[in-house]
């Protein structure tokens, strides 16, 4: 059963920020053990993790930028229970600029950004949320990247300005990592991930939204070792994206057993069988959802009966659709069909052709006088 925390009864960010009560020792060590396990470190590292988190002197400045997105990753970020949101924002990190969470607005907000950049040049962590549109809007006022403007600057201008002096860039969510839904075909705004837009290497924590335990674990890794964790070929931390959802799934035994949900709500669904046949993309998706789950280990889509949509993979909006089918459709000029339809048409056409040829041969059998074996 889901552990319901008292903090969840506090609905708003203000409520949550208002608690400002520190964790007790047991809760703190619980959190440290969890983070240590998520990072794939031995239990001997727990005291080091605890020390790294307690170290106020190295509290890094964080500048959190929003681009084209839905703010779900900020929402996910403030769902942290251990450490609590307020611990994370104020004590563990120094989040100096965050458009959604900061109290200031207008010039005061822009001033906070400038001063944070100036005071921590080369030392701050830049966290990016959302894709960056690169296309030029139509019309005389259209400028490259003009589909997104913040404080008179385009998204790409702001990204280049802030990211160039960052110690490290962390992309949270699929949009900033790979473009996300904005980059889905036909991608009218030319949206791309932050790394592709700026050419600056980033560490990516994709997910729709990302899991806060992974971003916290990444930050702890940074505090502990002064560097970002090892990554896979897409720039995702290996501790979280090194294994497939499929290989860690609670329903995996039903996959191997050949026990599948045929349609939502059937008897197999009630039995908690494998969601492979209703379009689960777990076999193609690298994420640690089954282990850490969302909302402080409460649940994740497959546990709740919905197939994995593959949200942490590049171009998942294009590659993983249809979400309730196993395979993507074929998109070629003049062909928009499923692989099975194309295949059956091809093989069926060949079978018809073969039958027609056999009939034609039979009708022309006299041509083979002397060569037909039975004559």
């Amino acid at each position: 059963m889901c552990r319901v925390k008292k903090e969840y009864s506090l609905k708003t960010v203000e409520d949550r920020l208002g608690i400002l009560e520190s964790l007790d020792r047991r809760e703190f060590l619980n959190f440290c053990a969890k983070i240590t396990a998520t990072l794939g470190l031995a239990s001997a590292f727990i005291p080091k993790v605890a020390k790294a988190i307690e170290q106020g002197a190295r509290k890094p400045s964080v500048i959190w930028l929003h681009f084209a997105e839905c703010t779900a990753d900020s929402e996910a970020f403030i769902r942290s229970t251990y450490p609590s949101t307020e611990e994370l924002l104020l004590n563990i990190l120094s989040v100096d600029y965050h458009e959604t969470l900061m109290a200031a607005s207008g010039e005061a907000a822009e001033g906070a950004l400038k001063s944070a950049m100036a005071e921590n040049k080369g030392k701050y962590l830049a966290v990016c949320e959302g894709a960056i549109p690169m296309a030029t809007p139509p019309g005389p006022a259209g400028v490259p990247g003009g589909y997104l403007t913040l404080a008179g600057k385009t998204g790409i201008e702001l990204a280049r300005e802030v990211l160039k002096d960052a110690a490290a860039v962390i992309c949270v969510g699929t949009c900033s990592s790979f473009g996300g839904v904005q980059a889905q075909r036909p991608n009218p705004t030319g949206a791309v991930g932050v790394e592709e837009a700026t050419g600056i290497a980033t560490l990516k924590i994709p997910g729709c939204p990302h899991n806060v335990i992974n971003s916290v674990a990444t930050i702890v890794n940074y505090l502990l070792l002064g560097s970002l964790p090892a990554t896979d070929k897409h720039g995702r931390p290996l501790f979280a994206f090194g294994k497939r959802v499929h290989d860690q799934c609670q329903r995996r035994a039903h996959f191997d057993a050949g026990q599948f949900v045929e349609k939502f709500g059937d008897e197999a669904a009630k039995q908690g069988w494998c969601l492979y046949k209703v379009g689960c993309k777990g076999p193609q998706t690298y994420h640690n959802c089954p282990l850490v789950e969302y909302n402080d280990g409460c649940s994740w889509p497959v546990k709740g009966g919905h197939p994995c949509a593959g949200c942490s993979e590049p171009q998942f909006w294009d590659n993983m659709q249809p979400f309730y089918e196993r395979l993507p459709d074929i998109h070629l000029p003049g062909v928009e069909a499923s692989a099975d339809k194309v295949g059956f048409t091809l093989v069926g056409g060949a079978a018809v052709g073969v039958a027609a040829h056999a009939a034609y041969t039979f009708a022309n059998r006299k041509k083979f006088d002397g060569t037909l074996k039975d004559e």
Partner: protein
Amino acid sequence: MSGRLGVFESGETYLVVRTRPLVACFLHWVLFLSIVVLTITGYYIGDPEFYYGQGEAYQAFAMAEMRLYHLYASWAMAFVLVSRFYLAFTESCNHDIKQFLPTPKNIVNAVKLAIYFVTLRGEGAHYRFINPLGGIGIFMMAVFMLTQTITGISLYSAGTGAGSLWWVLGSPIDSLLEGQQNVRLIHHLVMYFLMFVILIHVYMQVWKNSVFTESDISSIIAGYKIFPLSQIGHFADYYGLRLTEDAPAKKRMDEVSTAREKDE
């Protein structure tokens, strides 16, 4: 290369010629079996329809077994691909790599043969070894099987974990095709392409076996083809036969002819 002469019951002289070594026949049937197993288990893995695990999850291994047989069969297919590729360069297989490759000459001959097979007009060339159309078909099959092997390695590597040998081999394919979904789509689609070519291949062999006396089907079982001399006299070049230079064969042929004349 000469052949062995014989006489049909009807009195017609025939020639028995080696077309391929027994090992090539053996590899063909290993390949056939592996493709049957791969198609059935692969279709199940893609869309598990006809077989379900019974009882509790720990009591059944339906999908696990299918995947295991798929893996075994894929090893068999890869083994055949590699060894047959090697044999294609040897004297025993008549260096038949020349017949498999889509060279301009092979393509022209294949088109001529295809026109003959479809229209049944004109004169169809008889080939002792693999005909150019069949050669191109086999080339396509080899390309498709290679694609299946490569995409299969990529799909298999996905669960093996970063750093493993399979990962090193499969991960670049995954990157090249922009994700596992595309790899899976190609693996699934190419299965149909393979079935398309195999359907035509099997039909053509049965057709030729029914219409001509070449006995294509027995040639893939025992490695011999049988030609009536009346059919191949003017096609001797195609067979690489030196009928006139082959004294024992010529002698035997003359004897048969004389015997037939006497009978008449």
